[in-house]
């Protein structure tokens, strides 16, 4: 049988794509649908049966959220706190550092590499290092506090300070990524704009306010979405920095993903855990859709 070139190309395209198509269908699409289905069942892998319960898992979830205090409620509250505190602080710091880095030449590569190293480091390894730094008496932070005659702080052992302490690590670790994206955005801004601003005698602040910041908007929106999603998915730092990975003290650092992990793999309530992940998915989808609408409005 003789095939035309166009038909031959179609056949080859499908041969080349065969394994990726099977992979995405079986490892990505099917499990996603399976997760929805599990969330409608009382799914315990150790039990003999997995009865269908309709939306009971979701009812339980919203029931927990309505309580005055519950682990699920803490998980959602903390996750929202991580996002609302973490994203703005991280992006402001990264933007300030990028603006400074963009103006220097001497040693700029060295600085960039230093800011970037934490980002490529294993979160678990470096979270354990921070956990040690936060220890009472021998931890570096308390040693420094003592050197400058300030009172010792409990950090991870206090319900008030634990969340900001975990957050500090996450901000510290993820900043390098934001800096690289901002620097790439700054490089794209045409030099002539700055020359024109200078001719007009614009101050440094005005140049930033009316040229740099508006033109950096694509990088900013991109980072807002990406960092929001990564803070929503927080897990490793909390399990590494809290006593027995429980998200304590008193659930003060627990996140949605940690709660999911504990429900699914420690209590084997996989149906309920799946309903948690479906809500997480909805949150992430919401953030993405807001980004798409913001981006398309700007183009119009």
């Amino acid at each position: 049988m003789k095939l035309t070139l166009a038909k031959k190309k179609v056949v080859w395209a499908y041969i080349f794509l065969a394994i990726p198509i099977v992979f995405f269908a079986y490892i990505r699409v099917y499990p996603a649908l399976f997760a929805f289905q599990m969330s409608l069942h009382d799914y315990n892998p150790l039990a003999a049966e997995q009865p269908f319960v309709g939306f009971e898992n979701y009812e339980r979830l919203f029931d927990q959220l309505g309580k005055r205090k519950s682990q699920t409620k803490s998980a959602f509250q903390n996750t929202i706190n991580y996002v609302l505190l973490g994203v703005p602080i991280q992006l402001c710091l990264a933007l300030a550092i990028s603006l400074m880095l963009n103006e220097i030449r001497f040693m700029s590569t060295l600085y960039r590499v230093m800011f970037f190293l934490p980002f490529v480091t294993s979160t678990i390894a470096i979270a354990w290092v921070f956990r040690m730094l936060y220890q009472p008496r021998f931890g570096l932070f308390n040693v420094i506090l003592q050197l400058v005659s300030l009172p010792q702080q409990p950090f991870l052992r206090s319900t008030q300070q634990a969340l900001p302490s975990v957050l500090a690590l996450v901000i510290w670790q993820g900043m390098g990524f934001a800096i690289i994206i901002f620097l790439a955005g700054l490089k794209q801004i045409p030099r002539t704009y700055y020359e024109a601003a200078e001719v007009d005698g614009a101050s440094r602040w005005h140049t930033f306010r009316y040229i740099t910041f508006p033109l950096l908007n694509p990088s900013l929106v991109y980072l807002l979405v990406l960092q929001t999603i990564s803070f929503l998915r927080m897990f490793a730092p909390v399990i590494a920095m809290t006593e027995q990975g429980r998200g304590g003290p008193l659930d003060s650092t627990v996140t949605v993903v940690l709660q999911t992990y504990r429900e699914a793999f420690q209590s084997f309530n996989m149906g309920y855990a799946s309903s948690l992940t479906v809500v997480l998915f909805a949150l992430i989808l919401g953030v993405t859709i807001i980004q798409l609408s913001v981006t398309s409005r700007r183009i119009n």
Partner: protein
Amino acid sequence: MAQSITPSNIFKDQGRVTTVGRASDDWKYKFFSYLLLTMIAFTMIVPFMWMISTSFKPEKEILRRNVFPVEPTLDNYSDVINKTDLPLWYKNSFIVAVMSTVSVAFFDSLAGFVFAKYNFPGKRPIFIIFLTSLMVPTEMLLIPWFIMSSNPPIGATWVDTYWGIAFPGVITASGIFLMRQFMQGVPDELLDAGRIDGVSEFGLYWRVAVPLSLPAIGALCIFNFLGNWNAFIWPLIATTRSEMFTLPVGIQQFSSEADTPWNLIMTGASLSVVPLLIVVIIFQRYIIEGIALTGLKG
């Protein structure tokens, strides 16, 4: 980020934009920039220094307040290597990271080549399904993956096997997207000339498209290796026996005893972090430019 990505400009320096002039206050601005940057850079390095310094401290110095060891020792290293499974975790992490990186390099670039250079019915829907899978957070798939791994279509169980740890990442949608962008820059004339010379379709991919896309494939490999080396949540679920842990999972398990062995944890952390940092410093230019151009998040 709307810049077009072609093989010719991807790793070329694009000349930096600096605000020119303002000689009067320029040096002040620069001075404060350097001052602040140095202070922040210092805070970036201190945790690493603390980690390495603690790994050389004898046990009795851990609870003391000295930053550097008074009597440096290699005992922690010999303890970690001889008395824990860390050498095995090292091997496991390496095998899993290499396995998935080789697979990603091949399948992502092949699929990217097809999406960039072939027209076939169903192309758009397939591509869109691949990309939408990026929107589904991995966390949602963990529980189904675990159920599938305990009762897989092939073999008895995937739990505690290399394949079981690696399978979620052997093909990545972000990598396919990156390779498609990049391979659109491969000239059609070159492919058609190859066809006239009787080169097979696979030959066109292997001998024309791949050599022209090596920088992008390299960047993809580096990110993928880093991502797998540091991966935590799935390896935590997919392994139950200490001999099969990857490094992050193993380091997390150090703590299970009531007394936290800080010196051993810091030694394990140093061993897991330092070799990779050296590699990253050597390839920093490619990694940083790769991230800047692709927005990939490792």
